[in-house]
């Protein structure tokens, strides 16, 4: 069995699975239940001056048969008095001394920061997380993402906190910004011990087609919410990569958040440099029990690969994430259809013909519905292999012999890049495209439309 325990900027936990600051960490009852279920840490629902919430708080994107592929909320920070929360933090730590309890905080003035830090330290919190991410409601009052979007302000506040705090400090960033490295660097320059990201993304998940109000609807009106859940994972991973690869920011540990639900998500985040992960939506959807699947999967992955701790593979994908200009232009793949597996849906055909490069042909006789690849037209875009509903039916086969290497960067250096509109060096020069009028040839005989 691999050792899943972590030491995250001095915060120790039996495993890297933490609950993100959100409704699942509203109370001592929930956090105790979560630890009992197997979670290694919990970032308490953000504490501050208690708020008043609206009724009707969440909205979601359902995709096909998947509920909550994306999730959206307009909730604010805790609406419970600080004293109640502190009492429960203390109690949790009594029962679970080895688990990580991190207090998420959001207040306005320097004096408030100093006071609340003292309070949570006294309650026994193992660390502090600064919520500079909430993109709805709190930001209208100059807090949350309003801070996360102003690197200078962020740096100042991190400075105040570092002066006051005796326990490790994590700065939680907002993704609602064009360069995540700007607030990331500000946090590090302010002295933060660690970073966590992402908080939610500003969003509108839907409009009611009768009342014309955005979801979630509060008495006929709505507001932008914060988007999270599986849909945001790619955005979170990209930002994580930007921070982890940054020469300054990459020196502090990063807790990855955003759309994590399965062991695979966990492994991917760790490969991109995270050394703890936080989960909110998946727990709101399935309850604390999902950690069983995460833990079993992570254990198996580490066993299969021979890793003893997560630090053995943390960040291992980072060297392979590079800039476009360093990709090998001589690499060539072509689609290949496994006729045995093909079920004849012909989605690959129509995807390539309508959405890519007209490189797939239908069978001549129409009897057997297995399409075939026209190799000379295939640019190796992957589209067909992505739409194919059968696992492993379309594979992308490497066609170059691996001896040649030429990147855009190298071509730029060598002066062999296209520079004029009709440059003979255009990559697609001479590539097959059908005559435009061929598009209309089947108009009368078109089976799907007749």
């Amino acid at each position: 069995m691999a050792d899943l325990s972590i030491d995250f900027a001095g915060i120790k936990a039996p495993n890297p699975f933490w609950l993100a600051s959100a409704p699942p960490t509203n109370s001592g009852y929930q956090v105790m239940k979560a630890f009992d279920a197997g979670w290694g840490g919990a970032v308490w629902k953000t504490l501050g001056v208690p708020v008043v919430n609206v009724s009707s708080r969440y909205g979601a994107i359902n995709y096909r048969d998947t509920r909550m592929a994306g999730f959206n909320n307009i909730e604010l920070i805790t609406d419970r008095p600080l004293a109640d929360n502190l009492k429960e933090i203390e109690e949790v730590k009594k029962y679970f001394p080895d688990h990580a309890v991190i207090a998420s905080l959001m207040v306005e003035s320097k004096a408030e920061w100093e006071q609340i830090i003292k309070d949570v330290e006294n309650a026994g919190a193992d660390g502090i997380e600064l919520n500079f991410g909430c993109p709805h409601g709190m930001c209208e009052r100059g807090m949350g993402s309003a801070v996360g979007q102003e690197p200078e302000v962020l740096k100042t506040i991190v400075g105040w906190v570092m002066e006051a705090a005796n326990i490790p400090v994590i700065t939680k960033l907002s993704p609602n910004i064009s360069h995540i490295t700007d607030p990331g660097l500000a946090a590090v320059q302010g002295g933060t011990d660690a970073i966590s990201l992402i908080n939610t993304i500003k969003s509108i998940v839907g409009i009611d087609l009768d009342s014309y109000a955005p979801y979630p609807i509060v008495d006929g009106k709505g507001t932008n919410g914060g988007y999270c859940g599986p849909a945001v994972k790619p955005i979170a991973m990209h930002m994580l990569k930007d921070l982890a690869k940054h020469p300054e920011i990459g020196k502090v540990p990063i807790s990855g958040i955003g759309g994590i639900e399965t062991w695979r998500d966990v492994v991917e985040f760790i490969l991109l440099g995270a050394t703890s992960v936080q989960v909110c939506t998946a727990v709101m959807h399935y309850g604390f029990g999902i950690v069983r699947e995460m833990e079993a999967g992570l254990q198996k992955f580490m066993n299969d690969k021979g890793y003893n701790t997560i630090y053995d593979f943390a960040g291992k994908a980072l060297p392979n994430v590079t800039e476009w200009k360093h990709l090998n232009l001589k690499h060539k793949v072509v689609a290949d259809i496994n006729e045995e597996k093909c079920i004849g849906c012909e989605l690959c055909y129509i995807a390539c013909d309508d959405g890519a490069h007209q490189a797939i042909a239908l069978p001549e006789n129409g009897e057997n519905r297995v399409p075939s690849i026209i190799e000379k037209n295939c640019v190796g875009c992957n589209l067909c292999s992505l739409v194919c509903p059968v696992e492993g039916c379309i594979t992308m086969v490497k066609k170059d012999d691996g001896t040649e290497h030429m990147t855009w960067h190298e071509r730029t250096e060598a002066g062999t890049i296209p520079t004029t509109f009709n440059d003979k060096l255009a990559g697609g020069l001479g590539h097959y495209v059908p005559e435009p009028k061929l598009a209309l040839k089947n108009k009368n005989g078109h089976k799907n439309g007749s």
Partner: protein
Amino acid sequence: MAEYKKPKNESEFNQNFAQKKPLMNDTEAYYESSRCLFCYDAPCMNACPTHIDIPLFIKQIHTDNVEGAAATIYDANWFGNACGKVCPTGMLCEGACVYNHQNVPPIDIGRLQNYATDKVIREKTKLFKEGESNGRKVAVVGAGPAGLACACELKTMGYEVDVYEAKSKPSGLTVHGVAPYKITNEEVLAEMDYLQEQLNYTIHYNHPVNADEINKMINKYDAIFLGVGLGATAKRGLPGEEKEGVVGAVEFIEELRMNHSDKSVGDKVVVIGGGNTAMDAASGSARLGASEVTLAYRNSKEKMGAYDFEYDLALHAGVKGLFNATPLEIIGNGSVSGVRFIRTKEENGKLTEVQGSEFTIACDQVIMATGQAKQTQLFQQIEGLKLDDKNRLVVNEAYQCTHPKFFAGGDAVNGGAEVVNAAYHGKIAAQGIDNWLNNK
């Protein structure tokens, strides 16, 4: 056996004849519709005799445009609701679904179709419009799937349509013939009302038309559509066929459908035949409470014309199969007391009787499921109609008969198939009538 007790009232009848394809609820429809791949040139659609745009209507169900889904279905098939329940979908659309190639259950197309159409029927959503009157008049003989599909289509094009029907209810064998566990009478008739309320064709019930009357129609109407289907169960010339307790399968099922628990059946029943109608009659007898039902077919099980799933349904109802046995005589003093059979075997591809292998099965009811007679007599008396060697009406690809004023479709033309084929013929024939009249 006796898996089913004789139903004493409507609720017991409904239990014994529980629907094989119950109505989907919204959640089931949502999840099932999400599985459809939206195949290109979809094989399910090509396998549907009416070419319903199946991927489209399934996507419409999934995006909560159920009305739109129903419109897509009716656009291709006027019996969209009935077909969802009575079509042998495993042989048609669902049999062609690409999921079969992956050993994944195919999309439940029939029930999704039924779900979408049920909603508009129940909510009386107006989907159809009579065309602006073109001053032309068409007579339709027979209010079965063929005749009514033709009537509906003609009405959308502005024709005046008179339907003549021998019986007192519309839909032909859909309500009188199809097994009760496939569709209820209420469901069939609700769809018929739904269509007629919007399209306003006239149906003259209890009005069997004879050849004379039909010949007179030639001058009264611009065109005449014959959708008369097949006739009664054909006599087979078996000694004892006239005895009390011997009935034709189609007649038996019609009584069953019309009278439900009031219909009585013998205690020991022998059903003779190997087609789908034989399966329905045998299943029906068992579900009506017969203690023993024997399905006797002269050839082997493999040679039986019935679909496998129909035979399985009969077996599940407790029916016993008897193969390679051909009836010699129905015995009994006035009323039936048994059937004398002789064994058969296949020799050099020919079925022969095995000498000395006679045996008797005791019974008090015999159901002859040996095929329906054609309406040959009627057709022979109508001017200019040609029949093929199987006594089916000869038509061209527009379903026009050899007398140009006559069009025909359904069982009368194909010799007996499914509701969906008849509905398709009726629709295409209506378009044929319109084309012919416009180009005359």
